[in-house]
């Protein structure tokens, strides 16, 4: 009799636990519903309503007619297109380097991840102090005898220089983020694979191309996905370095919200950023298919 009673209480206890995970996730779900999902819905409303609250394309039209719209759109797309491939190459070199048997690679890895948590504003200010006319770049170049008087690197007339400066800043700041995913991915590749390829006489680059890169695809996919999404949000480093000479979509969203006090147009800009990041995320998923996905198709 006692065992039956015990089983019953155990079963009752189990039943009581069934609800537990839902109670545990409830606060998170509630918070994100109110302060994440709801604002997302509201931002659609903002972007497609006029000030009186009627449905309208006025904010979208105002965005399109914004004098800086094409400048911001072009510069944002250009930044993403230039930064992402360059920094993936750099991150791959760094990750492979950390993964060799070099002495001191623990320390090297630590140095490589140092910028991981630096904000784009901080990075912008750091590199601004390098590129500025009385800055460190000119000091070093002049010290080496490469230039004989300080060059004005941050020059609104040289659009490509400004682009290059923002690209370098972003590469310095956010490459470690990709590298850390790639290092984790490399460590997941069984070393027998590379050894087998080596036994069959594959050289370094052949092994890289035929073994490492294909096995690294899932990590590459995740890194690319996140990086592309974040790349569309860049603005503070652009403001810190170029002042008002260059602007990005996120920069324009901030300007319309903060300076022109028009949340509707700001929301239209934000929506454009969302659409661009989702479209490029879909592109990434199509272009970098992982082996498992390919088998499924």
């Amino acid at each position: 009799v006692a065992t039956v009673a015990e089983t019953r209480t155990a079963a009752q206890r189990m039943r009581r636990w069934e609800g537990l995970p839902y109670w545990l996730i409830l606060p998170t779900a509630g918070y994100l519903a109110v302060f994440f999902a709801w604002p997302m819905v509201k931002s659609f409303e903002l972007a497609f309503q006029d000030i009186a609250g009627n449905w309208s394309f006025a904010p979208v039209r105002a965005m399109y007619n914004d004098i800086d719209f094409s400048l911001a759109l072009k510069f944002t797309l250009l930044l993403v297109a230039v930064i992402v491939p360059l920094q993936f190459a750099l991150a791959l070199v760094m990750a492979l380097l950390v993964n060799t048997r070099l002495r001191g690679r623990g320390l090297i890895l630590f140095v490589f991840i140092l910028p991981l948590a630096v904000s784009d504003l901080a990075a912008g200010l750091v590199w601004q102090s390098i590129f500025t006319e009385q800055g460190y770049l000119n000091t070093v170049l002049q010290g080496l005898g490469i230039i004989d008087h300080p060059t004005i690197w941050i020059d609104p007339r040289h659009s490509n220089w400004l682009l290059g400066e923002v690209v370098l800043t972003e590469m310095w700041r956010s490459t470690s983020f990709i590298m850390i995913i790639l290092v984790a991915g490399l460590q997941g590749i069984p070393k027998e694979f590379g050894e087998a390829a080596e036994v069959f006489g594959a050289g370094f680059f052949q092994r890289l191309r035929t073994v490492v890169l294909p096995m690294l695809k899932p990590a590459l996919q995740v890194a690319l996905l996140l990086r592309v999404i974040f790349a569309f949000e860049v603005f503070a480093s652009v403001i810190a370095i170029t002042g008002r000479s260059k602007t990005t979509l996120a920069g324009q969203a901030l300007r319309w919200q903060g300076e022109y006090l028009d949340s509707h147009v700001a929301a239209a800009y934000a929506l454009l950023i969302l659409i661009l990041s989702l479209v490029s995320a879909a592109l990434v998923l199509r272009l970098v298919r992982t082996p498992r996905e390919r088998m499924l198709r």
Partner: protein
Amino acid sequence: MTLRLPSMPRLGLYLLAFVLVLWVILPIYFITLGAFSTQDAVYSYPRELLPRHLSTSTLSFFLHSNGVVPALERSVYVAAITLAVALLVGTPAGYALSRFAFRGADMFRLSIVSTRAFPIVILAIPLSVTFIRWGIDDSVIGVAIAHTALALPFAVLTTSSVFAGISDELEEAAMTLGCSRFGAVRRVILPLALPGLAAAAIFVFIISWNDVFAASVLTLRHRTLPAQVLTAANEAPLPYRVAAGFFLMAPSLVVIFAIRNYLFTMWGRVMK
């Protein structure tokens, strides 16, 4: 997998590593050097490349600039509230994800992960409209609410991976020995999870500390430090910008140093 590179000269690899280490370190060195030199040295050209005139006058000029100290205080408050709320709300969810196979768990995890696809830019603008209606625009609380929305998914995923690293046999053992589940978690699991949770907390702090966009949108006169610096950046004199760059960067470096051993456990799973 370790790649062996018999064909590549080792010296070349060390040289490459050296160059890349310089690429990361030099900007940090330069801004630190600038921040700790006299204001005259910051204006001088050519710049000194070695620490000869160490001084705190540039930093103190920045800290005494208009509005910087109150902004710094607000930044710390916002980050502290964000940290507390995100961990309090997120840790139970992280625990649930790591311990229970409940219906909808995958769906929940997926929606948490997919929040990353939605930029802070799109979140902040409607929140600013709502906060005006609620009367918490331009306030520490408002910014903290936005930052918590930003950091909560991260807190859930990292705490879940921290708990996943601790065997659930431990709490089963404690429950067999008479603990309730809550007691088992409190007495056995939490002490073991503490370092990992601390690492997650530190990273949540820096997520809040680093945010410029939401803070700039949600505040006007009561700026957080990054928002204050962004407003002033282009007009401010060089010593201000140098010191601000250092001041905003330094905590992130300290944080990476503090949680360097947890980064891969946290990242490895968060990314999946």
